[in-house]
């Protein structure tokens, strides 16, 4: 985090409050709904004419990006903090201590990291990319996002895509239900639309796991619970079929995948019960996701052939492994962010040279035209094709003369706006402001 000192004028500024710096209670008060964000951006347009702005508000962060094409209009971070406080009816002094203020290159680097999920609570989570896109779209719709923030957000999306494809930071799953379904159940079964799913118990994790199973194609779902009314209610809510707990053995015979989340203190399925039904299953594999604590399935069942039994601890260990894999990818992801930041900043700095280059080209072109006219008057017998040849030679000569200074400007832009070179060009070629 870098704090912009008061009075520093920059063309890019950011004030941000994230899960790292702002307590949850304050984050809740600071958060913007979609409608509130639209209203805030409309107010931003009125309050800061000539500035571009994008407001990103998620459950873990509120960030206001501001940019000015003209450094004279550069946004002041303190004013942005005051604006946010005003929008949410908060005291600005409450926010100024907790909101991070960044400027220029740090803003770009931060946005790229956020879009790639590197600043998220769950490292590499992909949802943030959609939220960044939505924030940018809203800015465009309200008319507060212009070429500068547009270019920056476009580059952020490109960076996020590169991080996602060139590293595995977003590949590894880190929630227990997603790991259970994608890394284990899908390793056993090719498809789920022809499988029978059995939910034993009505724990919260069962509903979450079922969401992933549904996404994978599961259709035939039965829910059994000791309290029948609870099973019926849950089945209606989840679009499943209620079953009888008394028929658990029969349900286990028919099931291909079991998600168990009861609150029982003793195993609901002891080894003896499984041994009784094993033969009736006719060798079909059985995946058991035992998400209950204490466990619902006797661990010895996992040693039976054709049974793939996973407890909460097994799945949590797999999640940890995946988290470590994500962390190992962090340096590669940061290198991409750094590379893209440099690229964007170089382009941005280079944009400032455009008016001078245009002037230079126009001046040379004017001089060249005058010289050509003079030459053609002295050589009136030249054929049209010969005149064209001479004109082309002049143009090539001018382009070749202009090439080295352009390369130097581009190179100088990598380390900041090339003010020195631009001043030198202005003085050497007597160019106007």
């Amino acid at each position, binding site marked *: 985090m870098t704090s912009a000192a008061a009075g520093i004028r920059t063309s890019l500024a950011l004030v941000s409050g994230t899960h790292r710096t702002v307590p949850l209670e304050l984050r809740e008060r600071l958060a913007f709904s979609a409608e509130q964000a639209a209203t805030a951006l409309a107010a931003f347009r009125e309050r800061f004419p000539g500035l571009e702005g994008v407001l990103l508000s998620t459950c873990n962060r509120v960030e206001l990006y501001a940019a000015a094409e003209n450094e004279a209009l550069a946004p002041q971070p303190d004013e942005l903090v005051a604006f946010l406080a005003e929008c949410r009816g908060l005291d600005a002094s409450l926010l100024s201590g907790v909101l991070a203020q960044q400027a220029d290159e740090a803003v770009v680097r931060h946005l790229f990291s956020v879009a790639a999920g590197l600043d998220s609570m769950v490292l590499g989570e992909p949802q943030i990319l959609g939220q960044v896109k939505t924030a940018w779209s809203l800015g465009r719709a309200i008319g507060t996002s212009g070429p500068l923030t547009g270019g920056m957000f476009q580059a952020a999306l490109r960076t996020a895509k590169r991080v996602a*494809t*060139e*590293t*595995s930071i977003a*590949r*590894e*799953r880190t929630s227990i239900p997603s*790991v259970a379904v994608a*890394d*284990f159940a*899908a*390793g*056993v*079964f*090719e*498809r789920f639309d022809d499988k029978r799913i059995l939910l034993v118990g009505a724990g919260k994790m069962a509903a979450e796991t079922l969401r992933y199973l549904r996404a994978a194609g599961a259709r035939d779902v039965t829910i059994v619970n000791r309290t029948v009314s609870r099973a019926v209610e849950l089945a209606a809510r989840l679009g499943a079929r209620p079953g009888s707990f008394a028929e658990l053995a029969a349900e286990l015979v028919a099931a291909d995948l079991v998600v168990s989340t009861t609150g029982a203190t003793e195993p609901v399925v002891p080894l003896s019960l499984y041994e009784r039904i*094993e033969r009736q*299953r*006719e*060798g079909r*594999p059985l995946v058991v996701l035992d998400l209950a604590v204490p466990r619902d399935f006797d661990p010895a069942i996992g040693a*039976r*052939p*054709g*049974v*793939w039994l*996973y407890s909460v601890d*097994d799945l949590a*260990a*797999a999640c940890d*492994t*995946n988290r470590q*894999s994500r962390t190992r990818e962090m340096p590669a992801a940061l290198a991409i962010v750094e590379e893209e930041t440099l690229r964007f900043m170089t382009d941005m700095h280079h944009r400032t040279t455009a008016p001078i280059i245009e002037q230079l080209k126009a001046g040379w072109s004017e001089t060249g035209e005058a010289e050509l006219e003079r030459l053609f008057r002295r050589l009136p017998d030249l054929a049209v094709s010969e005149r064209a040849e001479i004109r082309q030679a002049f143009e090539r000569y001018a382009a070749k003369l202009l090439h080295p200074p352009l390369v130097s400007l581009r190179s100088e832009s990598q380390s900041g706006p090339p003010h020195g070179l631009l001043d030198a060009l202005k003085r050497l070629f007597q160019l106007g402001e």
Partner: protein
Amino acid sequence: MTEFLSGISIVCFAASYAVALGCEASRLVFRSGVRGIVMVGFAAAGLFAHTLFLGWRAVNDSTVPLSSPFDWYLLAAWLLAAGYLWLALANPRTPVGLFLLPVVLALVGAAALASRQPFLQSPASQAWARIHGSFNLVFSVSVSLGAVAGAMWLIQAGRLARKQPPLVGFRMPSLERLTAVTHRALGIAAWTAVAGFVSGIVLNAVKLPESVPWSDPVVLRMGLVVAWLVMADGVAIAMRRRPAGDRVAAWLSVVSLAVLAGSLALGLFAPSRHGMPSAPAAREEPHAVEASP
């Protein structure tokens, strides 16, 4: 053009397949956005050169095309390489080449050691020799595919039993899919092996009186391979409805390839009358036909 085609050697496509295999192996070491393109590119280039090589031999063979042990191995390798390319395009995230390409390279290597002399047959026995060779080719390819699926099943099952998440870039197909491939490949291999053996017996009868003796090493070895495959398929079917049935089928598939490879390896070095000309027919009008080594 002729010079170009005649310049293609087995080293050309073996090297392409080896590079594709290296790319597959690199999945375990690092991630790359262009690896898939390079991998498929080399495999496709290898298959193209392989096809041209076989085509050139078929066109320029003075006898019946592709009828030597050398050609038989290369045809088997070509079928597996084509299968690999298709699987790599259809399932780019599955490292199937890590299992299939070594078999392809082994077959190309076996071809390099095998005789380039065509199996000489009389016109009367040509049709049966062709049938015999084709069945043997199909069962060998089926055994190879089944073994690859079986090996992948065992690795995937090991990972699931150890409760480890899949490695990045090394995502295996599901056990359900691998089981289906294993069973199908074992079944096809067993029945085409039987058909190949029976057609061999008929071929031997057609070639009488100077036929291959029953005690010939090739006949004995292939008889054992056929018996093993029939037994393996029978066991796999019998175990299908048992909890350990899928694992047994996977092991049987892997062992089947070992049995077949052992038999073919012995065939490269052991003397045999298999595929030798039957004297009267050969004297009248020698022809070469497709047959197995």
